[in-house]
């Protein structure tokens, strides 16, 4: 019985589909192997799982799937370390270990009745995708919805098909920029915070959700704040080393916060005093 309650034991999930998003980024669709019940994997937008590859290790990865489709657990992963590189070699039919879901969520309910500005940098679009899906499914509950997305190059743009669909909608503003580009790119070149200048912001009725490299989030917060938004209406998702995901291993500490259980999503007001401290 103890095995069932041990929070450190991974559950096996089968890879049902692999999508190669970019040269180094891929998406797994997973199904529960030891399904107790209907095999649903319910989660809140912005939460993460600890993903384990046999014999290599375990890492925290945000859930990138649509919360309305809980039969498939979806993760979008960039191959940057030993575990993610081992994951990149996995194919349909292979098995991954999953623990979770853990952590706090994007304020999709709290944002109802407000304008929403979603700002993503690089792989930071993946943890925001569940929130975008959820908001678009309940589109009538929100005011103006904007998605600002920055990638390094046009080749690094994630979820390209979906981005085209979103951009085609008349009820959503989508702006994309890249750091640098060659050839046929006709879009924006520059950093994401510059896009904020081009969005209509009603500071008293807007919720911002920001995920990307810390340096990008820093300048986004400054820009949003300059536009009149309070820090408690700006939400960011933080990243730190994690070994357990449940507040026991000590690795993800960020001042008094444990990113794994108090975060990863924080209202910026909660971590504002920590954010500018170097090497915290």
């Amino acid at each position, binding site marked *: 019985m103890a095995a069932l309650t041990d929070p450190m*034991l991974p559950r096996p999930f089968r890879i049902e589909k692999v999508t190669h998003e970019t040269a180094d980024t891929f998406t797994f669709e997973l199904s529960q*192997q030891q399904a107790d019940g209907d095999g649903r994997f319910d989660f809140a937008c912005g939460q993460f799982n600890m993903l384990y590859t*046999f*014999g290599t*290790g375990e890492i925290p990865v945000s859930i990138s799937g649509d919360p309305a489709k809980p039969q498939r657990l979806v993760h979008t992963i960039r191959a940057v370390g030993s575990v993610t590189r081992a994951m990149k070699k996995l194919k349909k039919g292979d098995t991954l270990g999953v623990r979770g879901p853990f952590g706090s969520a994007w304020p999709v309910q709290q944002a109802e009745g407000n304008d929403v500005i979603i700002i993503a940098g690089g792989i930071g679009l993946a943890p925001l995708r569940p929130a975008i899906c959820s908001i678009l499914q309940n589109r009538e509950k929100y005011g103006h919805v904007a998605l600002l997305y920055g990638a390094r190059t046009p080749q690094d743009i994630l979820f390209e098909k979906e981005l085209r669909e979103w951009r085609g909608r008349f009820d959503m503003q989508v702006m994309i920029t890249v750091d640098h580009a060659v050839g046929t790119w006709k879009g924006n070149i520059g950093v994401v915070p510059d896009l904020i200048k081009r969005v209509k912001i009603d500071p008293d009725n807007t919720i911002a959700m920001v995920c990307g490299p810390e340096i990008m989030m820093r300048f986004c917060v400054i820009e949003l704040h300059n536009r009149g938004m309070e820090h408690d209406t700006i939400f960011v998702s933080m990243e*730190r080393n994690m070994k357990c995901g449940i507040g*026991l291993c*000590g690795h993800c*500490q960020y001042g008094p916060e444990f990113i794994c259980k108090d975060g990863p999503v924080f209202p910026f007001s909660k971590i504002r005093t920590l954010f500018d401290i170097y*090497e915290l």
Partner: protein
Amino acid sequence: MNKKSKPSAYTLPASQLQKIIDLLHEQGYTVIGPQRQDNAIIYDEITSTDALPAGWTDVQEGGTYQLQRRDDDAWFGYAVGPHSWKQFLFPAKKKLFTIERETFRAQAEPADKTRYAFLGVRSCELHAIAIQDKVFRDGPYADPAYSRLRNNAFFIAVNCTEPAATCFCSSMNTGPGAESGYDLLLTELIDSGQHEFLISSASAKGRALLGKMELPEATPAARERGQELLARAADKMHRRMDAEKARKLLLANPEHPHWQELGARCLSCANCTMVCPTCFCSTVEDVTSLTGDTAERWRRWDSCFTMGHSYIHGGHIRSSGAARYRQWLTHKLATWVDQFGVSGCVGCGRCITWCPVAIDVTEEITKFEPVTQETAA
């Protein structure tokens, strides 16, 4: 509490302590107690009071620890050594699971059903265990192995009458006398050839065991002697920590220049975190069998002084020694309170003694005080 019907303390002749150990063995406990090994007093399994470090004390200072003969044959006449009870409740190395490649079924290690009886637990150590309870047992996610071992354990505390020079529990309100969290409490009395203990209980388990001993009620004189020894022990402690002040100073000074100085002195050896009875960081290691058919996942103690502790893709968050020292000290004395409602420090002084460069937290904390004209002059 009706003190007249139930004496609060009894007298236990030293020769009778063996009987307590025997009774605990009969009840299925593994008794762990202090003993002298490798020129230190450490905690290991004992079956007999003969193993206790009779007549030895530990002389401690920043960066030094030495055993010396005492004038008497006290069994508990030392303070604390490099070990703490943490190593039994939260083992330094523990297998989390074994997994087969074929089935991908993760098999947890069978539960460790050991029932420990800890003999000679100091008040600071009881406080440290209560702190780790908040981390491992009482949070939203519990460590089942810790919870089981800890809940099954029997605690025989010993009032600390011989604090080391590095101790500062009296200023942290964590000692030298034990107030709660034990089953039995001993105070060692050794006068003019007589060797005995005051013994009292604070739990049903403790009372049941005492009930089998048929001990005489302690005399008022003996009880008074016990109080006197504790008062004297508190007086002996010269190092101090003002916990509330320390917390405020650290929270106010994440970018104080003294961090650089500390970072330059600190060797990042992690000794302080290994000997600390409350430090709880762990990492995991994956081991694959030679055939590749099975893999194991192990949990090991980790330290915020290692580079790997803060590694995320792209680099180490706390790449400087100063940042790592700041993380340790600020967590221990300040943010721990936000996380768990108590300080992470119990004033045992181990981090001072076992620091190879003798960094003394009680002294370093004062360096963060604002420079007033008085102190600048």
